[in-house]
């Protein structure tokens, strides 16, 4: 199978020589995400399979084309999970694409993002070199953390070929509670609770209803339930699954979907658009046509950034602009990993 990596490296070298862009693809479930890329497809979906999984080490190594569904099945058989609860947006979703987009689900504020669980990455850089960074141990500070740098780089710095993760045991018990409250009260409440030793694992608020998920030891979940009150939501697991996959009615239809990632305690944005707030106030989804300027202003006022997540204009301005000095470092990093500029060019707007 490592012949496959040699072939990928050869293909990248050949494209680098003639400065011909490559569009890296896994399951093709995230084409909607990021700016429209250019180039010939470079398909990783056949490079699939678990390389090593040692449940007692809490470490998993997989080929980048492995489907999330296959990984989750293997982990579930051992009572473990990918703690960042990655959304798939389609059955064909691969782990490579998930890490490239740094996609994390409802558990993110309480467990960590995809990047937090990446322990190692094998990549092919834009020069066609097969490189390994990080490793298969929990603690590792040898060299710069290039593995985590790959998370959220949308394939613009390297083709991910193999990835190692820290995994965790699945919680023994879960419960979902619902509360009726307005947005300001919700923001205050979820942040107050997050400052207390409670087994929170997700929050979501829409149309005046806050749902809270508790995960952990059965005794801890029961105690927190008694403490928080609220109404029991028996079909809670389905709700979180639908939220994670953006299958709730809120996400239906063709209206553009905006993602505002803001300070969790930021007060209500005051935009007159349908809104769903999750991540303890930190991730605010908005629906509808809107000008870029006011959306970015609203995000910035809330100490965060705005992304056109789905729909709308996708050729430029998908992501929040970077400060000039930060953009300068980005340009140089891109040059350092992909001097010919052939890996997913333009997928991150300017990179």
């Amino acid at each position, binding site marked *: 199978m490592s012949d496959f990596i040699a072939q990928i490296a050869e293909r990248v070298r050949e494209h680098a020589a003639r400065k011909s862009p490559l569009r890296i693809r896994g399951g093709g479930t995230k084409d909607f995400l990021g700016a429209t890329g250019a180039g010939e497809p470079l398909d990783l979906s056949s490079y699939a399979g678990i390389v090593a999984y*040692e449940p007692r080490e809490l470490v998993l190594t997989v080929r980048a084309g492995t489907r999330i569904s296959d990984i989750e099945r293997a982990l579930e058989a051992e009572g473990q999970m990918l703690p960042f609860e990655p959304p798939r947006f389609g059955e064909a979703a691969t782990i490579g694409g998930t890490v490239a987009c740094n996609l994390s689900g409802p558990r993110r*504020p309480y467990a960590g993002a995809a990047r*937090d669980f990446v322990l190692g990455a094998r990549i092919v850089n834009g020069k066609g070199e097969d490189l390994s960074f990080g490793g298969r141990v929990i603690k*590792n500070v040898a060299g710069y953390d290039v593995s985590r740098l790959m998370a959220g780089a949308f394939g613009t710095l390297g083709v991910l070929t193999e990835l190692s993760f820290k995994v965790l045991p699945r919680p023994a018990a879960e419960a979902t509670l619902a509360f009726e409250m307005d947005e300001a009260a919700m923001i205050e409440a979820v942040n107050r609770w997050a400052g207390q030793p409670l087994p929170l694992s997700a929050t979501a608020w829409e149309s005046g209803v806050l749902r809270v998920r508790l995960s952990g*030891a059965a005794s801890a979940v029961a105690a927190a339930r008694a403490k928080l009150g609220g109404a029991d939501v028996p079909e809670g697991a389905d709700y979180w699954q639908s939220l994670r996959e953006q299958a709730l009615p809120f996400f239906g239809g063709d209206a553009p979907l905006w993602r505002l*990632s803001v300070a969790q305690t930021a007060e209500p944005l005051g935009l007159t658009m349908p809104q769903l707030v999750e991540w303890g106030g930190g991730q605010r989804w908005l629906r509808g046509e809107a000008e870029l300027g006011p959306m970015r202003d609203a995000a910035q006022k809330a100490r965060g950034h705005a992304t056109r997540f789905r729909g709308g204009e996708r050729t430029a301005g998908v*992501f929040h602009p970077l400060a000039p000095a930060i953009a300068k470092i980005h340009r*140089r990093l891109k040059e350092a990993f992909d001097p010919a500029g052939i890996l997913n060019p333009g997928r991150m707007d300017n990179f």
Partner: protein
Amino acid sequence: MNALALPPAAPLETRRADVAGRLRECLPAGAVLVSGEDLRPYECDGLSAYRQTPLVAALPATEAEAAAVLRVARETGTPVVARGSGTGLSGGALPLADGILLAMGKFNRILEVDPASRTAKAQPGVRNAQITEAVAPHGLYYAPDPSSQIACSIGGNVAENSGGVHCLKYGLTVHNIQKVRALTIEGDAVEIGCDALDAPGYDLLATITGSEGLLVLLTEVTVKLLPKPQVAQVVLASFASVEAAGEAVAAVIGAGIVPAGLEMMDRLATAAVEDYVHAGYDLEAEAILLCESDGTAEEVAEEIGKITEVMRNAGSTGFRVSGSEAERLKFWSGRKTAFPAVGRISPDYYCIDGSIPRGAVSKVLRRIAELSAHYGLRCANVFHAGDGNLHPLILYDANVPGEFEKTEEFAGDILELSIEVGGTITGEHGVGVEKINQMCAQFRTAELEQFHAVKAAFDPPGLLNPGKAVPTLHRCAEYGRMRVSRGQLPHPDIPRF
């Protein structure tokens, strides 16, 4: 801009006078040190076997002053080594003879505590433990707790991506910081990270964390805070062999438990600490485990029950559960003072930081025992068993000619052994100057070149802590030749596995 710079070949004293003169133009009196006596406190960090007097030391107190120091460095082509509390264990803050030592000790204020968003903004010279002290009234704490936490600085923690005894459950520094403010060598003040849970663009925050001062100079760090667990309890378990203790570690994890802390110590280490702090350790045991549970009262009761059952099934020859907070702290006191305790039974000791898959622990400890016999040097083992981070402490006497060299060789063998079993040469102490040769064994040429390219993206002139953390290819070539000249593998007389 460089027109006034002296040629690099200018004698050291001429350069010293020139750089000090320029620094004095922008820093207050007393903030530029040049005399040998004044520079002595800065000549080493926690790795005191390596010493070097810097060209000058600069002690800025504000971001503007720090920026001025970097400007002088840039204009004169002088390297800069930043230093926090100087507790680092890999020589990351070792000065350069021709470089400015930039001491960040005056950046010692906590700028903001925001209990609602569970964050605190601190200057880089603030001590790790100082943050937890400041936020404790809000029921919060900062989770990463390196053993040196009463002294080490948060800036140094970010530079090294420091860990501690609670990493398996709570993560490393990289998981517990939100944002930093920093200066680039080019003079830009940048915010890296975001007040939101993620930032647009590449994950520069992860890149600078653990970068050992080679990419940017930190001026502010915003850390994430966690609610202090209501209760913590620890199980102290004895084992008749190191292998049995290693199996128990795997069994705890295998039972779906993520303990707040899981530490192992071997007999030489427990004997040293017992003599020092009387932590109540079992001196008959070949190895002991400390396994901590924290959380709500209900959670801890449930988890401690599970842990004791696992220990019993794993063949523990005896265990005790802390019955009070005082007893819990007493059990931990031995582990936390392991380094100074070992310091009492040997004139000198050398700490190693290999990180290995937990499954390899028995093999690695057995091999270390063989190497110990081969070199004729005792070795006490202290192990963050939960996350696979091993700290063998080699006991030696620097006054015995040749013993330090032997110790370094022993250490190098352990690090290469760590790589061999699928681990890494450094789990949390950093590469610094100490492990720079082993980086040549851990990474291939193209990977090292990629690291150098990353550095150049942040620091084009290459003036921030040059020569540390990532070896030049030339150095690796030299190192490779040296090892080849000794024959195929080092110590062919020792059985390898």
